[in-house]
C-alpha cells in the first residue's frame, strides 16, 4: 500500500479514476475485438494532432466549463442540481430568440443583452427549484429532474407554436443568427483551422476565475461553503439558509444558462428542437464531479472530456470503433469517482510534514491523524 499525503491523495483519486475508466473502455473494446491502443491513439491524435482538432476541443470544453461551475456552486451549498440540461436549454433558446428578434440592434448592445437574457432564463429555471426548496423543503433532485422535462417539452412548444414564422427556417430550426449577435471571431476560427472555437472560451476563463474568487475570497462564497458543510452550525452563526439556497441555485442556473448561450451564439449559431435533455448538462455534471468542484479541476476535467468527445469522432472514422465508447469511458470514470472511498483505500494517508512538526512533542499527535482521515472520508459522503 502506497503512503501518500492527504494532498497527493486528493489528486491521486481522480487520476486513478481516469485510468480505471480508460481500462474499462479498453476491456469492452477487447471483448468486441476492437483494438483499444489504436482507438485511444486515434482519439488523442485527432483531438490534439491538428489546429482544427484543438480548436474544436476547446469549443467543446467551453459550455462544459459553465455547466460544471453551475453544478459545483449548487453542490458546494449542499444541493444536487441535476437540472443543468433544462437550465442550459432555456439559456440557449432565449438568447437565440433575442438575437433573431432584434436584427438591427448594434452588436455592443445586442450581444450583452442576449447573453444576459440567457443567464436570466437559466437562473429562473433553477430559481423555481431553489424557491420550492427554500419555501417548502421540496427535494431539489426530484424537482430539477421534473423541470428538465417541463423545459424540454415547453421549448418544443415555444419553438413550434409560439415563435414567429419569420424567425424560423422550419418548425424545428431557427434561422442562423446575424453577426451582430454572434460570439464567432473570424481570426480565432481561422487560426484554429476553421473550427467553431469562439469568444465563449474567453468568457469561460473569466468565469473560472470569478468562480474561484467568489467561492474562496468573498463572504457570499464563504456562506455558501459553510451552509453546505454544516447547515445547522451556519444557522447558529446567523447565516440565512433560505437566502443561501436561493442564491446558490440562482447562480448555479445562471452559469448553466450561460453554457446554453455559448452553445447557441457560439457553436451552432441557431436553435433546433431538442428531443432529449441536453448533453452539456450531463457532461457538465460529470466534469464537476471529476474536477472535485475546484476551479482548476473543472478546467482540466472539461478539457479531458472534450478531448474524448472530439477525439471520439476521429476514432470512429479512422479506427471504425463506435463513438459511444467515449460516453462509456466517461460514465465509468464518474463511477470510480463515486466509489472513491474504495480507491482511497489503496493509499494510506501519511501525516503531512507540517502537521508532524506542529504535533511533535505534544500529546495530540495521534488525534490529528484521526481528524485528517475522517475529513478525507467526510468529503466522500
Amino acid at each position, binding site marked *: 500500500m502506497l503512503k501518500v499525503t492527504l494532498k497527493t491523495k486528493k489528486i491521486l483519486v481522480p487520476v486513478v479514476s481516469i485510468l480505471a475508466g480508460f481500462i474499462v473502455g479498453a476491456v*469492452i473494446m477487447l471483448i*468486441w475485438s476492437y483494438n483499444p491502443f489504436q482507438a485511444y491513439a486515434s482519439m488523442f491524435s485527432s483531438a490534439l494532432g491538428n489546429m482544427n482538432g484543438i480548436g474544436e476541443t476547446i469549443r467543446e470544453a467551453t459550455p462544459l466549463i459553465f455547466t460544471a461551475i453551475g453544478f459545483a456552486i449548487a453542490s458546494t451549498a449542499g444541493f*444536487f442540481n*441535476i437540472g443543468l440540461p433544462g437550465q442550459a436549454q432555456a439559456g440557449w433558446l432565449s438568447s437565440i430568440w433575442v438575437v433573431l428578434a432584434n436584427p438591427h440592434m448594434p452588436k455592443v448592445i445586442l450581444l450583452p443583452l442576449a447573453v444576459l437574457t440567457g443567464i436570466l432564463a437559466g437562473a429562473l429555471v433553477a430559481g423555481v427549484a431553489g424557491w*420550492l426548496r427554500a419555501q*417548502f*423543503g*421540496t*427535494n431539489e*433532485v*426530484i*424537482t430539477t*429532474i*421534473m*423541470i*428538465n*422535462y*417541463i423545459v*424540454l*417539452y*415547453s421549448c*418544443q*412548444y415555444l419553438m413550434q*407554436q409560439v415563435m414567429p414564422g419569420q424567425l424560423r427556417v422550419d418548425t424545428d430550426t431557427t434561422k442562423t443568427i446575424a453577426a451582430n449577435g454572434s460570439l464567432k471571431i473570424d481570426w480565432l476560427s481561422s487560426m484554429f483551422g476553421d473550427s467553431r472555437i469562439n469568444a465563449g472560451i474567453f468568457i469561460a476563463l473569466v468565469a473560472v476565475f470569478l468562480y474561484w474568487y467568489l467561492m474562496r475570497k468573498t463572504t457570499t462564497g464563504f456562506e455558501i461553503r459553510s451552509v453546505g458543510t454544516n447547515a445547522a452550525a451556519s444557522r447558529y452563526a446567523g447565516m440565512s439558509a433560505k437566502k443561501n439556497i436561493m442564491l446558490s441555485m440562482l447562480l448555479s442556473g445562471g452559469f448553466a444558462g450561460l453554457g446554453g448561450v455559448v452553445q447557441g451564439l457560439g457553436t451552432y449559431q441557431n436553435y433546433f428542437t431538442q*428531443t*432529449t435533455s441536453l448533453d452539456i448538462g*450531463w457532461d457538465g*455534471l*460529470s466534469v464537476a*464531479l471529476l474536477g472535485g468542484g475546484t476551479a482548476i479541476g473543472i478546467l482540466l476535467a472539461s478539457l479531458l472530456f472534450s478531448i474524448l468527445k472530439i477525439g471520439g469522432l476521429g476514432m470512429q472514422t479512422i479506427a471504425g470503433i*463506435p463513438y*459511444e*465508447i*467515449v*460516453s*462509456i469511458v*466517461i*460514465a*465509468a470514470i*464518474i*463511477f470510480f*469517482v*463515486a*466509489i472513491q*472511498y*474504495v480507491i482511497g483505500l489503496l493509499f494510506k494517508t501519511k501525516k503531512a510534514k507540517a502537521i508532524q512538526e506542529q504535533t511533535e512533542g505534544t500529546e495530540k499527535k495521534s488525534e490529528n491523524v484521526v481528524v485528517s482521515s475522517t475529513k478525507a472520508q467526510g468529503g*466522500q*459522503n
Partner: protein
Amino acid sequence: MNLVSILALIVSSTFVYSAPLIFTALGGVYSENSGITNIGLEGIMTMGAFSAIVFNLTFASTFGKATPWLGLFVGGIVGLLFSLLHAVATINFHADHIISGTVLNLMAPPLGVFLIKAIYDKGQTENITQSFGYFSFPGLANIPVIGPIFFQNTSAPAWLAIIVSILLWWILYKTRFGLRLRSCGENPQAADTLGINVYGMRYAGVLISGFLGGIGGAVFAEAISGNFSVSTIVGQGFMALAAMIFGKWNPLGAMLASLFFGFAQSISIIGNQLPFFSHIPAVYMQIAPYVITILVLVLFFGKSVAPAADGQNYIKSK
C-alpha cells in the same frame, strides 16, 4: 365515434403506455423502501429495452408467439445485472446514491448503442416481428359495455403489471420480508440491532428494482417502440420515478399514478382523434406528469412520505 368506442380507445392506449411505467415504478418502490434512492431507473429501463429487442430479433423464429414474454424475462435479468453496479456502489462502497444512479443513466444509452453497433453494424435495430399486440380476454371481452372497454383489444402486459402490483403490495405490507425491507429504509440502525441483515435487504431492494425496471424497459420496447435506438427510452424512467413519488412509495399508489401518467401520455398522442382533447395543446399533457409530481411533493411537505433513511448510506460499524 360513440362513447363506448371512445372510452375503449382511451383505456386501451392508457394501458399500453402505463404498463412500462407500472413495472418500473414498482421497482423504484422496492429500492427506495429498502433505503436506496434509485434515480438510475431510466438507465435500467434502457438496458431492459436493449436486451429484449436483441433477444426478440434473435429468437423470434424459435419461440414464435412466446418471444415477447420471454423477452420480458431477459430484459428483467439484464436490468437486474445492471442494477448490481448501483447496489455494490451504494451499499458496499459508500457511494452517493444520486451520483451512482446518474452513472447508470449515463452508462446505459451509450452501452446499448455500442453493443447494437458491434452486433448489427448500425445504430438502430430492425423492427421486431413478434411484438405485444392487442389482446382480448376470452369470455370477458363479450360482457356488454365493460368488455369492449377493458377486455377487448387491450394490453396484456398492463394487466400483468396490475396483478403484479397487488402482489407486491401484499409482499411489502403483509409479509415478514416486506416488513424487514421497509425497516431497513426507515431505520437501518434499529433493523441491524434486531438482527436483520441490512446489506442483504438493501441488495434485495435494488436487485428487485433492477429486475422490474428491466421488465419495464422490455415492455416499452416490445409494445411501443418496436426497435432499439438511442432515443428508445427518453424520460420514461424519470416518469416512473415521478409515479413512484406521486404514489407515495406504495406499490398500489405507484400503479394508480402510472395509470394516470399513462393516460396523460396517451392523450398527448391520440388526443387529436378525440373530440374534447383535440383542442388542448399537446404540451399540457406532456408536462402534466412532471408538474403534478412537483405539486404533490410541495403539498405533502410536512407529512413524511419518503422512507426516513432513503438515500442514506448505512455503514455497519465493527
